């Protein structure tokens, strides 16, 4: 990789980190999600700073085209994030449904009392 490419990667990683921290500071991102993205950026940064690392891993795994590992990792990571988000979404849907049920039952109790 050229030094320009390195620079772009490092600057991108730093900006992403600052952006994530800013969201946490403004209470727009919960701590548990921030760790996920900070971890991903950290991994990316390591690969960017240690240029031989990716080639070394590719060598050990017998992968001919080193960047393919990067794409593969990114794909798996994003896939896991999406699965996790659908899991969270399911949980949230269950919870809002339960809230609505509770509210309806409470309302009917109130109606009974006011009669």
């Amino acid at each position, binding site marked *: 990789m050229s030094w320009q490419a390195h620079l772009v990667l490092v600057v991108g990683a730093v900006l992403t980190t600052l952006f994530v*921290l*800013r969201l*946490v*500071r403004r209470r727009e991102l*919960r*701590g*548990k999600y*921030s*760790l996920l993205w*900070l971890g991903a950026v950290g991994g990316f940064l390591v690969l960017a700073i240690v240029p031989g690392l990716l080639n070394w891993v590719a060598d050990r795994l017998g992968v001919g085209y080193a960047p393919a590992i990067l794409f593969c990792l990114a794909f798996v990571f994003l896939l896991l994030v999406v699965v996790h988000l659908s899991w969270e979404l399911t949980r949230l849907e269950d*919870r809002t449904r*339960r*809230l609505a049920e*509770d509210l309806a039952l409470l309302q009917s109790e109130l109606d009974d009392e006011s009669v």
Partner: protein
Amino acid sequence: MHKTLVVIPAYNEEESLPGVLKELHEQVPGFDVLVVSDGSDDATADVARAGSARVLELPYNLGVGAALRVAFRYAAAGGYERVVQVDADGQHDPLVLEMLLAPIDDGADLVIGSRFAAGGAVTYEVSATRRRGMALLRRLVRMLTGQRFTDTTSGFRAFSQPIVTFFATSYPSEYMGDTVEALVEACNAGFTVTEVGVNMRGRGGGAPTTRGFRLFYYYVRLVVVLVASAGRTPRRQG
């Protein structure tokens, strides 16, 4: 006599709760008691009602911070002048409640019952991870607030009316945020925070909530949130 509310966040504490409520009734009969059942699967809410406490039942488990949040809203709406948080597992001795509340009457906004300050004591074992984590948090909180606290994760605390109103809308609800983050936030918002040494007993029942790797993860997460929020000055209402 100040209007005082004792708040007990409880998650599946049907075994230890009756003893705690009984002690409270004997030691501080003038205080109102509010149990927040945090999505308990057992008879926590029924036991609390039987012990003539007020009960708020959360529909599912949301964590101590969320339980406190709703308790603060309740206290703010009820016009309570002092709120004190007590654990449901019997770790906190009602005998020292007045000691914890005394600084509130002298103008403090948040009083932390410390196991490690002068006069405080622990009569139970603390795991190595937890001990190291607590030491790290002590240093971090000192850096962020410029104030020295010996027990940043204590759940035995007293609150003044202004800080209850403040926390009713802004209390941190993530695990451990409810203690350390709240402490830092109170300092940042210009509230007076002090510490009182108190003796804590072993748990009446149940195991510590987390340990090992999970606990480590929570510490890392908390440090990230604290560092990210450093110097942030939340808007103080009223």
